[in-house]
């Protein structure tokens, strides 16, 4: 990554992109230029020269101290990110080294792999020079010096010390090809100590292996079980699970982790896999709970021609200290609830086990939505309610008047009056159209027909006007006037009229039934 430092700085600075800026580091004789922008490069600034020399050429240069530690951290972050292409990634000087043997075909060949790497780094705002070669040293040489003929490259592509390079140049050995033509024995004798030229050459052409030490990543806790003979009976997976879980729990305990997502993989004899995974609401390493979650999923794994190995992996883990609730084994109710949610979610699916989620909105169906319980954050302290209960009805009235007819930019509407909620206990997923007899244009409803049954309205309260959210709805959205109505048998409903006559957003207003009161 040739321009990492300057590009990283350019992303974070607020100077215009064409500013002649240079990044500097402390040198023995004053500041030394570390990296330059394109604008600075045209004015004669070169990395490695002293800042004072560059200033003499153009005094308008802006000097900013470089941040090598930050660059290094960024490089390491890129190394982790680059594991998308290959499992073996290493930070190598100012670049990254990926072992792509057996990987390139996943990306449609080496060419498209290179293109993909370039494109993704470019998207992140960093330019790259990418090269693929049979040996790591050759790839380094190509990426730093370009070209496609190894023999034509300058000897400094061997990553030798500057002194050695100077010596080689004096001997007339300017290219790698010239060096390769020399007898090995003579070279070995000439460069006995210091930098080993033979060694560098061997690494370059692959006569000497240069293994890659990948960035250390904690492998996820994993328990594996190999069977002597392929098991074809359906109970094989649950039985294997019983033996795998204690093993995994021991690993989790040692590393003070709790599992949030577990997956069990059955390896079939014919080379195929059967996998299943479960997630948990809070991290857990309770063997009984994990066993219960996975048992059904494991039993559903189809052995086909038989499993010969199983692996249980905690794919997603969280820190979990050693915890003891009490001396007697009595789990806390919060943890109990989390386990209940896990069990329900595993069987019914995450979309069907929900917890209320509030949203800043005045539309009732938007204001209180539902989110999967398994991914909702800690549920302690969620009991606070939207509550702006004024002390008296008169105060409520004043409050309402102060807010004005459109409440869409004030706080939430008063949901409680005199301790009673003004919101229904039940809301239809889609408001249902009803036929209403009402005093036009904005009078109270008298009678309505819902699902082919006629309800005479005995009592009515309203309207509560809820304006459309013009910042997200189309301009044709109409306001809603909500009424709480009670029919002659005492059933209470929440109905609304959509729109007004002559509001210019469609024809006659429609009526909808939205909620039921208890």
């Amino acid at each position, binding site marked *: 990554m040739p321009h990492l430092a300057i590009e990283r700085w350019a992303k974070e600075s607020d100077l215009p992109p064409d500013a002649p800026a240079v990044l500097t580091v402390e040198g023995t004789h004053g500041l030394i230029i570390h990296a330059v922008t394109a604008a600075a490069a045209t004015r004669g600034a070169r990395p490695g020269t002293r800042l004072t020399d560059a200033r003499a050429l153009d005094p308008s240069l802006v000097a900013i101290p470089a941040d090598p530690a930050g660059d290094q951290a960024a490089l390491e972050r890129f190394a982790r990110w680059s594991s998308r292409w290959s499992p073996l990634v290493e930070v190598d000087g100012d670049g990254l080294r990926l072992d792509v043997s057996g990987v390139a075909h996943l990306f449609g060949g080496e060419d498209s792999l290179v293109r993909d790497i370039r494109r993704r780094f470019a998207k992140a705002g960093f330019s790259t020079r990418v090269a693929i070669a049979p040996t790591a040293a050759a790839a380094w040489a190509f990426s730093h010096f370009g070209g496609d003929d190894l023999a034509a490259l300058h000897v400094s592509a061997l990553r030798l010390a500057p002194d050695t390079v100077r010596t080689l140049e004096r001997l007339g050995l300017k290219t790698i090809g010239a060096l390769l033509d020399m007898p090995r024995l003579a070279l070995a004798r000439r460069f006995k100590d210091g930098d080993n030229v033979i060694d560098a050459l061997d690494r370059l052409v692959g006569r000497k292996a240069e293994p890659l030490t990948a960035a250390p990543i904690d492998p996820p806790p994993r328990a594996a079980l190999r069977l002597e003979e392929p098991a074809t009976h359906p109970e094989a997976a649950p039985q294997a699970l019983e033996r795998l879980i204690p093993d995994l729990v021991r690993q989790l305990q040692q590393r003070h982790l709790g599992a949030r997502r577990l997956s069990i993989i059955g390896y079939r004899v014919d080379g195929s896999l059967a996998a299943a995974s479960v997630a948990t609401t809070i991290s857990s390493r309770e063997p009984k709970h994990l066993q219960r979650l996975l048992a059904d999923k494991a039993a559903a794994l189809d052995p086909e021609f038989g499993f010969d190995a199983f692996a249980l992996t905690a794919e997603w883990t969280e820190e979990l200290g050693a915890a003891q609730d009490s001396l007697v084994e009595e789990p806390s109710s919060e943890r*109990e609830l989390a386990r209940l949610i896990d069990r329900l979610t595993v069987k019914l699916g995450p979309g069907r086990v929900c*917890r*209320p989620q509030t949203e800043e909105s005045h539309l009732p169906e938007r204001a209180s939505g539902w989110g999967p319980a398994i991914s909702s954050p800690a549920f302690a302290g969620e009991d606070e309610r939207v509550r702006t209960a004024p002390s008296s009805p008169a105060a409520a009235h004043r409050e309402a008047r102060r807010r004005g007819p459109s409440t869409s930019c004030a706080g939430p509407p008063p949901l409680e009056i005199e301790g009673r909620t003004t*919101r229904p*206990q039940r809301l239809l997923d889609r408001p249902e159209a009803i036929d209403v007899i009402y005093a036009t244009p904005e009078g109270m409803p008298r009678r309505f027909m819902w699902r082919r049954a006629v309800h005479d309205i005995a009592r009515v309260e309203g309207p509560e006007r809820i304006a459309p959210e013009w910042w997200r709805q189309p301009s044709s959205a109409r306001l809603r006037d909500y009424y709480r109505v009670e029919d002659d048998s005492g059933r209470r409903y929440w109905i609304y009229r959509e729109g007004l006559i002559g509001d210019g957003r469609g024809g006659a207003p429609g009526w909808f039934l939205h909620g039921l*009161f208890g």
Partner: protein
Amino acid sequence: MWREVYLWSPAEPSPRSGPAESDRLPSGLGECWRLPAPPNPTLSELFAAHARDAGWAGFLLAQVDTSKPLLWVQDRMAILESGRIHPPGLPSRNLVHVEARDARDALWAMEEGVRCSGLSAVIGEIWGDPKALDFTATRRLAVASERSGTPCWLVRLGATANLSGARTRWRVASAPSLANALDPRAPGLSAWDAELFRARGYPPGRWSLTHEADRFHLVAASGDRALGEGERLTA
């Protein structure tokens, strides 16, 4: 689960109230009385008098303790027919909602919930008379609920009262609400017609009730409303 009930006008005296129960059942104006409820948490069944009548929800929520989260299970038909629960209208937002595909899933979720000690109650709504909901299923729920101490409410919408293992069985309908002091045209405090048609250890009965500030009140039956209006006795 015992709730105090203060009455201010007899609704419809139970036809079968013998002398032995006279200390438990309401007999007159202003008498202190408790809503019949089993002494220990168990399974109660609640029949909505009509599928489009959500009055039972108010009656039920008035009795549910919300110090801990609620588990509210609804099957698909119940959601389609009478709507999904709406947290702003409920006494507590601290709840877990389960949308079950059918009655079998709903019953399974309820049983899992009843076994969990972290819940204050389990409420399950099941539409119609599915095959999965038989005597055995209700009996299982009742036993599980009694063992764990988590009260369980099985709400039946558009259903008939078949054989059941529930300890108390209610049929609840909305009744015309009380007068609203602030606006005579507006609905006031909710009222219900609650019929206890089976209870272990209690004679059945039928009452017109309302709930206010932690207490149920008996109210005059809707026909006598004009008469009973001014006669409220403060307890």
